[in-house]
């Protein structure tokens, strides 16, 4: 693993750093409030490593949820990860043993950076880059969780709104993709269908219908999407 690869991966992880530390802290604070120490925060952030699920998990822990309801809840909250794996089949090829960790650590944010296919100089190893980016991001997440659980509510400044950094990340990725790809049908379909599902199914239940709708629509418009990509 050469120095340039480490530098490049660290640079690419910077946009994630603030958001993960803050959201990780939020998780740590919630967990602490339910009587779990920072050691639990480390254990959960090491093994589950999924932002949304960990927030939901705090309530599952507090209420002593059953195995079945925990499994079902996790399936529903994290079903979108099925899609991330599909997009990484090609991108993670040739990673060897590191692919196991890369697939394990494929969060929304890591996915959004890697699916841009960031341009890398020739002396940077892409497999190492993918691996390190995933690792750096998980480190930020764990650090945030520990800080939150240790400091609890004693955050030294008003951090209201700091979690907007994740929204900002997705906006910038969206703009980047929009400019990179001449064919805007997938992006428009994604936005319209998700928004329609949000209105129909509500904020808590719209992800799974959106995913189903997006998959169907992408196949319905397949000819136009693929044709457009060749022409443009």
């Amino acid at each position, binding site marked *: 693993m050469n120095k340039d690869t480490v530098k490049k991966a660290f640079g690419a992880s*910077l946009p994630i750093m603030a958001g993960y530390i803050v959201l990780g802290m939020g998780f740590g604070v919630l967990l602490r409030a339910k*009587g*779990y120490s920072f050691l639990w925060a480390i254990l*959960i952030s090491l093994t*589950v490593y*999924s932002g949304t*699920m960990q927030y939901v*998990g705090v309530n599952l*822990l507090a209420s*002593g949820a059953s195995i079945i309801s*925990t499994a079902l809840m*996790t399936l529903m909250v*994290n*079903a*979108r990860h*099925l*899609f*991330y*794996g*599909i*997009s*990484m*089949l*090609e991108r*993670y090829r040739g990673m060897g043993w590191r*692919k196991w960790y890369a697939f*394990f650590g494929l969060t929304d944010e890591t*996915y959004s950076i890697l*699916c*841009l296919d960031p341009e890398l100089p020739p002396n940077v190893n892409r497999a190492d880059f993918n691996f390190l980016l995933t690792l750096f991001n998980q480190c930020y997440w764990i650090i945030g969780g520990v800080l939150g659980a240790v400091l609890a509510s004693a955050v030294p400044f*008003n951090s209201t*709104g700091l979690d*907007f950094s994740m*929204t*900002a990340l*997705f*906006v*910038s990725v*969206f*703009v980047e*993709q929009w*400019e990179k*790809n001449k064919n*805007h049908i*997938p992006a*428009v379909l*994604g*936005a319209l*269908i*998700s928004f329609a599902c*949000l209105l129909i199914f509500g904020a808590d239940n*719209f*992800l799974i219908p*959106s*995913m189903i709708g*997006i*998959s169907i629509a*992408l196949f319905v418009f*397949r000819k136009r999407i*693929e044709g457009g990509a060749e022409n443009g």
Partner: protein
Amino acid sequence: MVDVKQSLIIIAVMALVTLALRLLPYFLFSKNTPKAVLYLGNVLPYAIVAMLLVYCLKGTDFAGAGHGVPEIVSVTLVAILHKWKHNTLLSILAGTVCYMFLVQAVFPS
């Protein structure tokens, strides 16, 4: 908190189900990837980032203190800034500072 043993079981179930979801495509399709899956893998990122954006903004409260203004202004700022400078860090930093200022100082709840 519930007892240690039950806590560990709940954590293990969350971890295993999440890992299974993340690895399933690999186990199903890594050898002989069907063309339809390859196609989906190529075009999904564009649709999914849009979905994540809707997901992030789903909590926008148009009836609340800010009437959605902090979200609209900050998202627009990030989009314009990013189109102009193409610097992810700058876009995120400016957007977040703008949003925090709006929700804390301009539209406190």
